[in-house]
């Protein structure tokens, strides 16, 4: 206790500052006066008394010092002194301080941003979910397939729920949809989740307001749960929102609860509103037999494990139950056995992993390279700085400073650097990190708090760790007895081997970064070159949805009116009305070819009702025959259709289908004549090299076959990139009718976003990292070379006097610097070679061991190194001998 008390009072004294020193002076003054007057009483003169008092008192300064020693915390005091000294040093050498801080900031910042991305994508469970480790997403897998999220129907989830009640108290099915609200210019669209009653019981979310519907009570069919964001935007965050109504599609809902802030659903898109599954029946999303039919595949499934239940046991039981019922049918007619997997909730944690997640992991690992390169570089800078100070260190040693004292001094300087660059890195994480998240993460994960304690902690740890190691290495080198002894020029040569090591490290790590960047860039470029059978650039999609608001009959005409308006716009080339947007929807209908066996009605070829202009708008090539004409695309026109290559090959192998007859629909429908074969087009926006496994597909004139399908959309070919035209398209479309529902307008190429995201992420981030690495490594090499020139100025001076050619000296310096570069290049090429094998699965259309990639990487690095070494090395030849000899 006494020790603590002493410590506290010392600490207090330190904080209270100078006051005590003045007090002591006063005490001493009083003491001396009293003592002197005592001596005077004994008969001394004033002067004698004063001197005698001083003698008796002892050394005033010593007493002061002893007093101070006693008063302060010695270690903290020394620390503060070191800090002051370190700050002075950092300020003295501003250029290299700024360089070191900048480089560390980039290195640490990019690592932290990537760590944060990993954390959000893979580690952090959705916020507000109770005991998230027990909340599982249901996946399934056949013997011959990879795991995928289960998509099933209500009847199956009910069956699983009833059978698994011991292991899994709650199972819920849900699907997401976009529902329009309002009419006219104020119309909008919500991201909605239609859920079965156990949904919120599975998640265990506590509402911000109201009561979340669940299995414990009856769920009102019109109960709407709204998100915190929607509550704030639409209802101004007012507490009387409960009981207010929302008109969505053709139904009116009543708000019963608001979700807590930060809970935006469990998928990738932030959800605005949650609606009971049964309320979506009959709205187009679900038919009236949705409870019993096992023919639908639209519900995704989540489940809550009972505490203490082993996941594997629950999975086995669930698999047995699932396989005992009607399982999804396959086109090839073979029945599969399924294995049910209870995966973790975040979509990115899909069992077996996804491409995107693996790319993110790679990119994160690569950001570690950038950090290492940055460290190597800052190590350089600190070391070079240290070398410049070695004379000073030697002097200090001579004056009695211990090695520990010097080490502490150097490490304090490094620590200061760490704190400064840590602060800068946090700023970087806050700004650049937000940008990176917006670009590369699904909206839900990107939305959460911009900066949390863990990020700050990670930044701090990395920064301190990095600078400690960086500071310690050169500090140990510099303070060894050898370096401190006078005349250590020879030893310095050995010390600068450490510099070579740093340079080599940076170069070696840069090669795989540049190689990775070029591999991903090449893949990205090649993926964009894939021929999908339709030309999607400069195509926009414009649609509205009258089916959803209960006016199916008007949907066709409304789109025709929009089409008329759009046709008048000079920015557009042509517009086609379609039932389904290619690559977004697929639809099959009863059909038969007289004289052929009738294939299963639902697993037959896909069909789309389109305008005659479709083939022109989407640039679909006709392999044989012709597209249908405007005179055929009218109600009651001549029944015709166009089949794709796969369909032609499947039904009419070895002969031409042209002129044959196909009946779409019942027996009473007319037989349509095949008039053309269209080139295969990709059915889904999957980036694959071969497109010849496109499914069977045929096109019919939309006016004749408008009864096939109620859904409508307009495909618009624009003269320029559609991005900037979208607002215009939307307002023009809205103006086509007095009270049209929400108008959706988007650039067709957006459908490729999910497929291209991993490649885009890989190529962008690799590219940024590679550039960073190049710049950092270049700066490092330049600094080392410059240091070498400075160190050998005297030697060069002598050589020049003795008749050396300036160019020889430049070459000498270059050789010296490039030695490390070559060693680094060799190691780096090896790293890149093995790295490429690991990356291969993510790459697209890149041949293994593509020499172009390696050549480019090595060449780029070599050029940068040459430049970085040459610029400072040039100085070697320009040394003025007289000046050089005077320098020492």
């Amino acid at each position, binding site marked *: 206790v006494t020790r603590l008390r002493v410590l506290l009072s010392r600490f207090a004294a330190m904080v209270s500052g100078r006051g005590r020193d003045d007090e*002591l002076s006063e005490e*001493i003054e*009083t003491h001396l006066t009293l003592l002197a007057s005592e001596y005077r009483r004994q008969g001394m003169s004033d002067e004698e008394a004063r001197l005698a008092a001083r003698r008796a*008192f002892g050394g005033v300064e010593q*007493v002061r010092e002893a007093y101070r020693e*006693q008063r302060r915390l010695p270690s903290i005091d020394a620390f503060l002194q070191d800090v002051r000294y370190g700050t002075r040093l950092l300020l003295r050498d501003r250029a290299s301080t700024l360089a070191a801080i900048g480089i560390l900031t980039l290195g640490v910042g990019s690592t932290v941003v990537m760590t944060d991305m990993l954390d959000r994508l893979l580690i952090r469970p959705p916020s507000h979910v109770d005991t998230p480790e027990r909340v599982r997403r249901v996946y399934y897998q056949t013997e011959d397939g990879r795991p995928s999220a289960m998509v099933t129907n209500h009847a199956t989830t009910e069956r699983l729920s009833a059978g698994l009640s011991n292991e899994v108290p709650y199972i819920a099915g849900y699907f997401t949809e976009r529902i329009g609200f309002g009419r006219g210019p104020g119309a909008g669209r919500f991201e909605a989740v239609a859920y079965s009653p156990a949904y919120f019981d599975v998640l265990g979310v506590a509402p911000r307001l109201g009561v979340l519907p669940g299995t414990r009570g009856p769920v009102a069919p019109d109960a709407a749960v709204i998100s915190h964001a929607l509550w704030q935007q639409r209802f101004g965050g007012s507490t009387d929102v409960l009981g207010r109504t929302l008109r969505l599609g053709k139904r009116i809902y009543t708000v019963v609860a608001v979700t807590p802030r930060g809970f935006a659903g469990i998928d990738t898109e932030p959800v605005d509103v949650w609606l009971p599954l049964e309320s979506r029946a009959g709205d187009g999303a679900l038919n009236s037999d949705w409870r019993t039919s096992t023919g639908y595949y639209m519900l995704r499934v989540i489940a809550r494990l009972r505490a203490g239940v082993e996941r594997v046991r629950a999975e086995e039981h669930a698999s047995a139950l699932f396989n005992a019922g009607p399982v999804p049918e396959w086109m090839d007619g073979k029945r599969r056995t399924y294995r049910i997997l209870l995966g973790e909730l975040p979509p990115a944690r899909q069992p077996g992993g996804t491409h995107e997640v693996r790319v993110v992991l790679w990119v994160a690992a690569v950001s570690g390279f950038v950090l290492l390169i940055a460290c190597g570089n800052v190590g350089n800078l600190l070391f070079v700085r240290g070398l410049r100070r070695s004379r000073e260190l030697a002097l200090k040693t001579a004056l009695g400073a211990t090695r520990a004292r010097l080490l502490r001094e150097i490490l304090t300087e490094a620590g200061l650097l760490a704190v400064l660059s840590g602060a800068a890195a946090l700023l970087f994480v806050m700004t650049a990190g937000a940008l990176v998240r917006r670009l590369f993460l699904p909206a839900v994960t990107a939305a959460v708090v911009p900066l949390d304690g863990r990020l700050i902690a990670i930044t701090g740890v990395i920064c301190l760790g990095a600078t400690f190691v960086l500071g310690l290495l050169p500090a140990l080198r510099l303070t060894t007895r050898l370096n401190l002894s006078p005349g250590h020029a020879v030893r310095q040569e050995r010390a600068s081997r450490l510099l070579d090591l740093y340079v080599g490290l940076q170069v070696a790590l840069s090669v795989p970064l540049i190689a990775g960047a070029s591999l991903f860039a090449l893949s990205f470029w090649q993926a964009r070159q894939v021929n999908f059978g339709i030309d999607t650039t400069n195509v926009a999609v414009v649609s509205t949805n009258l089916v959803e608001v209960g006016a199916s009959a008007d949907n066709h005409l409304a789109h025709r009116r929009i089409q008329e308006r759009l046709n008048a716009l000079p920015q557009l080339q042509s517009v086609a009305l379609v039932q389904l947007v290619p690559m977004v929807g697929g639809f099959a209908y009863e059909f038969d070819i007289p004289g052929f066996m009738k294939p299963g009605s639902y697993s037959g070829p896909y069909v789309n009702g389109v305008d005659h202009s479709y083939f022109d708008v989407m640039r679909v090539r006709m392999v044989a025959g012709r597209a249908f004409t405007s005179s055929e695309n009218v109600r009651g026109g001549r029944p015709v259709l166009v089949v794709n290559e796969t369909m032609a090959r499947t039904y009419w192998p070895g002969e031409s289908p042209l002129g044959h007859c196909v009946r779409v629909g019942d027996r009473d429908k007319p037989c349509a004549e095949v008039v053309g074969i269209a080139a295969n087009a990709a059915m889904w926006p999957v980036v694959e090299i071969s497109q010849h496994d496109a499914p069977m597909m045929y096109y019919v004139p939309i006016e004749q076959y408008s009864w096939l399908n109620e859904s409508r959309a307009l495909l618009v070919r624009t003269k320029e990139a559609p991005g900037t035209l979208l607002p215009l398209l939307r307002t023009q479309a809205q103006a086509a009718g007095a009270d049209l529902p929400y108008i959706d307008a988007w650039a067709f190429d957006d459908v490729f976003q999910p497929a291209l995201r991993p490649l885009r992420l890989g190529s962008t981030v690799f590219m940024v990292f590679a550039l960073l690495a190049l710049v950092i490594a270049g700066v490092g090499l330049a600094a080392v070379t410059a240091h070498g020139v400075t160190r050998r100025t005297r030697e060069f001076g002598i050589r020049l006097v003795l008749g050396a050619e300036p160019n020889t000296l430049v070459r000498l310096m270059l050789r010296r610097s490039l030695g490390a570069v070559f060693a680094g290049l060799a190691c780096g090429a090896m790293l890149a070679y093995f790295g490429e094998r690991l990356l291969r699965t993510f790459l697209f259309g890149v041949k293994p061991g593509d020499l172009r990639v390696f050549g480019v990487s090595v060449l780029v690095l070599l050029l940068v190194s040459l430049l970085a070494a040459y610029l400072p090395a040039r100085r070697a030849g320009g040394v003025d001998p007289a000046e050089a000899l005077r320098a020492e």
Partner: protein
Amino acid sequence: MAPSSSEVPYGTLDLVVLKTLAAIGPQHGYGIARRIEQAAEGAMALNQGTIYPALLRLEQKGWITSEWGTSENNRRAKFYRITKRGLTQLASETANWARTVAMVNRLLESES
């Protein structure tokens, strides 16, 4: 250096200061120093200044407290006073001291 006087044995100054304060009540630094010199009757050479770090040490330990007052010659002076904890400490230190001295004495006598 006079043969009759010796340095203050290390660690004993604190004890002596405590004892002095216990005996004469609140006193300023000069008074304490004078008092110790008188008690030692010239047998101990005290650099009077050294009692200030000792006073601070005791104060930090909470054994004495100080407050500002006025000295005989009307100057501001800091007066030190022993605390309750200081009295307890003094008792135990005195006992310790006696034990140590007795032990050293026994040792010295048996050696001779």
